[in-house]
């Protein structure tokens, strides 16, 4: 393995979150981003295939070592790993709206969900899944929410573009246009 790949291996191993190529490039200032990308490819290939219990995956606009799926149940049963907390349906609903409408205010979220959503938004903020990205216009200059890199992380997404496009969903957003008079 190249010296750079080994350094990246150590850094990725030590980190408990995905690291971006830019972040990794700061480890070896002389190397440049192209070399870092090449080393990441080398590392990923090295761990790919069936020969390791962990693999290097691209996630949340970065790279992270994760255990291979087939060991999930065994490791979880042994309780050696920190259990991921599950999101409630209310939290997922709110996240979905924030993901697609960001930046979005609390009122708009509540209008779509039909229920008070302040507490859910607070919890998502505290868990670092959404953040305040700006303030809106109008009365009281409402806080506007957006998703964080950690949101991508818990969903295993590389970036927001991996979310399904709205027109790919089976439901069309707009109600059918009223029939034209003939």
């Amino acid at each position: 393995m190249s010296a750079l790949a080994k350094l990246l291996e150590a850094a990725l191993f030590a980190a408990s979150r995905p690291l971006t190529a830019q972040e990794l490039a700061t480890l070896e200032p002389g190397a440049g981003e192209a070399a870092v990308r090449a080393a990441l490819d080398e590392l990923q290939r090295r761990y790919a295939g069936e020969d390791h219990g962990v693999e290097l995956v691209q996630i949340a606009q970065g790279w992270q070592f994760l255990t291979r799926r087939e060991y999930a149940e065994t490791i979880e049963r042994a309780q050696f790993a920190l259990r991921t907390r599950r999101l409630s349906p209310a939290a997922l609903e709110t996240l979905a709206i924030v993901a697609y409408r960001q930046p979005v205010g609390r009122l708009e979220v509540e209008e779509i969900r039909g229920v008070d959503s302040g507490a859910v938004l607070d919890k998502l903020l505290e868990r670092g899944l959404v953040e305040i990205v700006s303030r809106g216009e109008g009365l009281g200059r409402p806080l506007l929410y957006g998703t964080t890199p950690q949101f991508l992380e818990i969903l295993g997404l590389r970036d927001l573009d991996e979310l399904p496009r709205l027109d790919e969903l089976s439901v069309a957003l707009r109600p059918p246009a009223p029939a034209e008079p003939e």
Partner: protein
Amino acid sequence: MTTPPVAVQDGAGFVVELEQFSGPLDLLLHLIHEDELDITDLPVAKIADQFLAVINELGLNQAADYLEMAARLLRIKAQLLLPRRAEDDEWEDPRAELVRRLLEYQQIRELVDWLARAAARRAEQFGRGFAPEPTAPPAELVIDLNDLLAAAERVIALIPEPVLHRVVPRPLDVEGATAKIEALLAQREELAWRDVVGERAETVEVLSVFIALLELARRGALRLRQPEPFSPIVIRRERPREAA
């Protein structure tokens, strides 16, 4: 979420049952799917009755969001019953707004399913479970002064006047009120309620005076009269007293 509602054995299931649906739109969508109804041509009368029945059954009729939706459904139902002329082009389907919201919400639900699947898949893999350098300083905490001041402003906005409620327990002063009434009656034969309690009486004062009046009336020291309902009470000395 959209698991079918479980029959409630008694009234104790309120909180648990509430979590079955993430809101009135979720419940509505559940009913629509259960009966395989067409959202865009919603039979509002039917769905309104079902909605009311379910929120009664689940005890959701105490939750404001559900009540609001129930009221909305009933209003639409009523509007649909109004006769309209065939040539009326201006007629707007009273269901339109609700249908739009339901479709929008249904789309969110689809996204929720997608997100839940993605999250479940991600949960099959574990990352490194620890912070590796125990000697490293704790992560630097960043507070922006502007953020803090913005927070202060938000807080200030919450309280138009920064007046805090303080509950100060104050005992009734029936004795004092009695003395005051007796002193006033010594000077004048007849008093109005306002003469005793003043313009801006506090609750404890009103109660004290009221109890004192009743007590004095019971003792026969005065007579209370209210000429007609809600008119001011007239307080009249029962026995003329000797001047002091």
